[in-house]
């Protein structure tokens, strides 16, 4: 029930952050990504019970997800840098 409440609150916070004006765009992007990652972690650990699984199963699930994250960061940053030139 607590996790449900926290997820609800984080969704409201996200909603508020997205509507904030007068703040640098990178800061908003960073905040939104951090909020999304924390909500996703809550769901994976508590709703999907990863927290109660063995370390190896957690590694089997979470380690591969690092790859698209890095891949995405590099490609998007490179594309943005090229567009800025």
């Amino acid at each position, binding site marked *: 029930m607590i996790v449900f409440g926290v997820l609800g609150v984080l969704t*409201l916070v996200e909603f508020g952050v997205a509507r904030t004006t007068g703040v640098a765009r990178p800061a908003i992007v960073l905040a939104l990504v951090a909020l999304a990652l924390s909500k*996703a972690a809550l769901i994976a650990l508590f*709703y999907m019970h990863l927290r109660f699984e063995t370390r190896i199963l957690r590694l089997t699930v979470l380690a591969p997800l690092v790859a698209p994250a890095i891949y995405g960061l590099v490609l998007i940053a490179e594309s943005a840098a090229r567009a800025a030139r």
Partner: protein
Amino acid sequence: MVRGARLSVKASPQQDFAPAARTFRFSQAMNTAHAHAPVAWPPDAQYGAATPGKIGMWIFLVSDAFSFGGLLIAQGILRSRSPEWVQPGEPALNIPFTAALTFLLISSSFTNVMAWSAAATGRRRAAATLLAVTALGGLLFLAGQAFEWTTLVHEGLVFGRSPRASTFYVITGFHGLHVLVGVAYILTVLGQYSRGRATAHHVELLGLYWCFVDFVWIFVFSLVYLMP
């Protein structure tokens, strides 16, 4: 509870999944034509009590996460390259409405987790009711998304007219397809569970899939809707 038939198994070479000396406890239901209670696998040194079904579901979900990752990365690249992401005349996305859909999906994940724990503690009626409520939440989410799409098309966000429109419909459509499959999956397990042919283990695997649908929506909501 059907008593397990103790069976000594000679492990064939390619199936060296346990020392030959160890005996396996197969539930008798395994031999009946349709109802098969979960096999009581011996706790594995690496994966503990996680059944092959659960490990398989997790590996499927990780591969599915790659699909969404690819779509979201593509949208990020297109977006970082275009100076004007929102084309003149294109409508803004309805954030409050989508935030409500997000909360609806979080709530249906919650009822799903409740169904899972009810099934695990043998409260069959509660588990069945909660599964039905979860399916209803999924259907409401799909109805909300259909309403959102028709409104946006009406206001001028048309697939193919801009990278924003195309990526929006592809990503939300791909997720909507997962929700639709999820609702069908829930109703199937609910039907089997009500007839005593699905067990808490099946409800657990379903739970992993349904929570994954919510897991992905969190990133879609942040990266597609909220990103400034």
